[in-house]
């Protein structure tokens, strides 16, 4: 299949089925544009939100998963809140991001998923977010060693960054949550 061709008959049926079971009714979109008009990050997107919804209804998985838009979406929920047809557009973005990660598709904005991964690693380990560890993990992974160095020093000087992590007692619960137990429910 040529992934550049946009036609409903070329749509990825497995992807459409996934959206259907998740309860995200992309076919309810009538292209009013309220989602795109209200999106705070739209200027940085390569696909506008209304295009994402329409491409999703055509099953154009490859174009969507390779886009910058899915990683630059800030999850502010303005689109889903204002959609007159109550399409869970922010939920659609979540599905697209997790699919892209599962399929190992090179992210068009690599720093964003690296940050999420660093944050989640910190929770996986301690049960709570540990800011210094999270930021250090992100810096090492992304190679962005100098960015925000001044801000970090200021935060540190103001005692805003806790030196040591807090480890919760129920780490076994956290381990189970991350182990994929319950995945059978999602499938």
């Amino acid at each position, binding site marked *: 299949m040529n992934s550049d061709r946009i036609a409903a008959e070329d749509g990825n049926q497995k992807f459409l089925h996934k959206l259907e079971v998740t309860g995200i009714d992309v076919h309810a979109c009538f292209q009013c544009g309220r989602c795109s008009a209200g999106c705070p990050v739209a200027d940085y997107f390569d696909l506008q939100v209304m295009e994402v919804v329409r491409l999703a209804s055509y099953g154009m998985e490859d174009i969507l998963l390779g886009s910058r838009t899915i990683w630059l979406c800030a999850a*502010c929920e303005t689109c889903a809140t204002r959609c007159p047809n109550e399409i869970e557009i922010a939920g659609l973005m979540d599905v697209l991001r*997790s699919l892209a990660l599962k399929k190992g598709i090179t992210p068009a904005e690599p720093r964003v998923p690296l940050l999420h991964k660093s944050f989640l690693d910190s929770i996986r380990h301690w049960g*709570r977010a540990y800011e210094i560890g999270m930021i250090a993990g992100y810096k090492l992974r992304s190679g962005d060693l100098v960015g925000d160095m001044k801000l970090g020093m200021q935060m540190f000087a103001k005692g805003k960054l806790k030196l040591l992590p807090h480890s919760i007692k129920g780490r076994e619960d956290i381990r189970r949550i991350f182990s994929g137990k319950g995945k059978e429910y999602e499938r």
Partner: protein
Amino acid sequence: MKLAYYPGCSLEGSARDYDQSVRQVCRAIDIELVEIPDWNCCGASSAHMTDHEIGMRLPMRNLLLAKEMGLDILVPCAACFQRLKAADKALRADPGYWDLKTYAPDYTIIHISTLLARVDILERIEGALVKPLTGLSLACYYGCLSLRNPRVTGAPDWETPENLERIVRAVGAAPVSWSHRTECCSGSLTLARPDIAVRLVGDIVRAARRAGATAIVTDCPMCQANVESRQLDAGGREAPLPVFFAAELLAAAFSGEYPASQQKTHLIAPDILSSCFSQPGSAREGTR
């Protein structure tokens, strides 16, 4: 009144002072907070944005811990509030999500401003004022997650909320009418794409300044950190606007002082609030 308390990770890290303000304010108006024992991170944006299952099951563990307490749950962080509400909704719809047979607790999950803006609580606030913050023009900034998506948060006025304005009026200050109260500051992107955050924060702060605000007040720890820190990167000729927590204003107005240790937590000098407390003879006789 007794409430279960879910502080969330920010409030034991970069927003530790916010936690202290919330506890101080609740003590002053006779609300007892009982911290949920051994709570874990709600997963914030990162979990649900990349893995639906983890994004749901992290907050669910907290709900089940809170269920044992039989109390309504107070949440001072907008992001934690939204994640706990999302998990609660999912679990009520299908308890099988956490391998439960039933899940129908009668608690409500309350974001801090919804509590503080209740009519009976506003009366308590007015009764506890030692130093009203007269003359402060404040832009009330809600951001996203205490409001959106209303199908999850249950917020009644998600485009035109009034809770922060009510609290600001109760403390004697003046809320300005402005345009960007519920615009996103891109907190979830701020580390990976600071350039985007600088632009969005710049738009928000310029709008607040145009409306005549001399400071911003919020109830979200991500907004507070992001809107202060990214103003520093933007530079520009105009003086940056400090961002206060509503609970921080209340704590100062209740105690009649704005201590240096609290002033120090700001990346932008909070002189506008400090000056309320330095004018001689301006303190009013307390009612308590």
